[in-house]
């Protein structure tokens, strides 16, 4: 009989404790309920949800919260489609939505760019760049040690056979993680519709470029003159394409003597 009583006491005390805790939790749950703006959830459902961190926030949930609070603008996010951005803008009462962009590497040097020294060290581009600006003689040349490939959350960057990084257009969401990672700052954004881009970032003239890289832009002005739509201008010894005028006729791609105007694909 005493044994039974022991069991009853033990079980009873445990159940009583559990019930007390349950009631205290329920009570506190009601007392301390935190009201969350319903808009935040709606906005978060419209965002791309890749949690890439390109906007500078810890993730899409935090970005949605700061959007609703008005601390961020929807253009800070690139992976979200323009259609969804419009919906978010409508939800929050207007605002710019921008156009769809993709990241692109403004360099096609790779093996064609001359090495300053032989790097035997450890690690990626960031480590290599800390040793007198990396192995490439060209100050804006792709080092080719995969820093951008490693950070891309969407596997959109590859190291191609010629030794420089390349963005796969279909996979890129333009989140901007690679742009912030590249120690040479030669990754940028262009409109998704852009047919061509200048695959060189070196602001130098002919012979200086030739000494560094055989694929660099030598500022010969042939593209500027040959473009039938006057979409290309030369600024600081590097051509700039006005994508509102470019029709994708590919004249510049064919005429460029160093083949540093690339078809965007």
């Amino acid at each position: 009989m005493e044994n039974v009583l022991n069991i009853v006491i033990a079980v009873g005390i445990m159940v009583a404790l559990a019930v007390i805790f349950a009631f205290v939790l329920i009570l506190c749950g009601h007392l301390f309920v935190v009201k969350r703006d319903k808009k935040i959830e709606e906005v978060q459902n419209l965002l791309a949800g890749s949690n890439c961190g390109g906007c500078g926030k810890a993730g899409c949930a935090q970005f949605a919260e700061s959007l609703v609070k008005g601390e961020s603008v929807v253009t800070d996010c690139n992976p979200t489609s323009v259609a969804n951005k419009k919906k978010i803008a409508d939800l929050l009462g207007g605002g710019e939505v921008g156009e769809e962009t993709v990241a692109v590497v403004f360099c096609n040097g790779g093996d064609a760019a001359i090495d300053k020294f032989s790097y035997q060290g450890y690690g990626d581009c960031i480590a290599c760049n800390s040793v007198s600006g990396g192995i490439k003689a060209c100050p804006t040349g792709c080092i080719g040690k995969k820093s951008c490939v490693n950070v891309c959350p969407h596997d959109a960057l590859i190291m191609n056979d010629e030794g420089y990084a390349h963005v796969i257009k279909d996979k890129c969401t333009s989140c901007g993680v690679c742009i912030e990672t590249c120690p040479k700052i030669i990754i940028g954004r262009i409109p998704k519709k852009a047919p061509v881009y200048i695959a060189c970032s070196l602001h130098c003239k002919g012979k200086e470029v030739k000494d560094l890289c055989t694929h660099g832009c030598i500022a010969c002005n042939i593209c500027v003159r040959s473009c039938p739509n006057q979409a290309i201008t030369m600024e600081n010894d590097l051509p700039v394409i006005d994508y509102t005028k470019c029709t994708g006729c590919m004249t510049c791609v064919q005429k460029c003597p160093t083949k540093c105007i690339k078809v965007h694909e």
Partner: protein
Amino acid sequence: MNFMSIISILFTAIISQNIVLSRTLGICPYLGVSKKISSATGMGFAVLFVLTISSIFCWGIYNLILVPLHITYLDTMAFILVIAGLVQLIEIVIKKVSPTLHSALGVYLPLITTNCAILGGVNTTVTANALSFLETFITCVGTGFGFLLAIVILACVRVKADNVPAPKAFKGFPLTLISAGIIALAFAGFAGVLA
């Protein structure tokens, strides 16, 4: 309860009987959340916070309910109930009262609802009958600080160790475990200082 005994309790709890490095409790968060110094600090403070508060409640429940009814064999079960309930309660309350504290500790609180560092720390301290309430409290605070110290030291070592050209087989967890072992060895040097 004089000043010297407080010092000796704190020294024992933080250094010579460190919860992780000497008693090998709480290894899971110790290895899991020590990649970055900031998250290690957050986890350390969350453990300290919960350990301190749960020691008060567990001491009360043990000495006012379990001991008079002679059911002290239920201590582990009662403590896990108290700690899990308490962590949930704390999370609900600080979410409302202090959003800043919640964003700093919030991620780590659910992780330690049934953490062995907390349960082990509370269990061994509270069920040691020789300790008064104040001594139990100080021991638990010291244990929490011990965990904080251990995890921050490991995080500092790991941040450095990530950037060394180690052989591939040593990269990541092997190197972490070796670092943890060396830190534990260093702490073992304090054993017996205030025996």
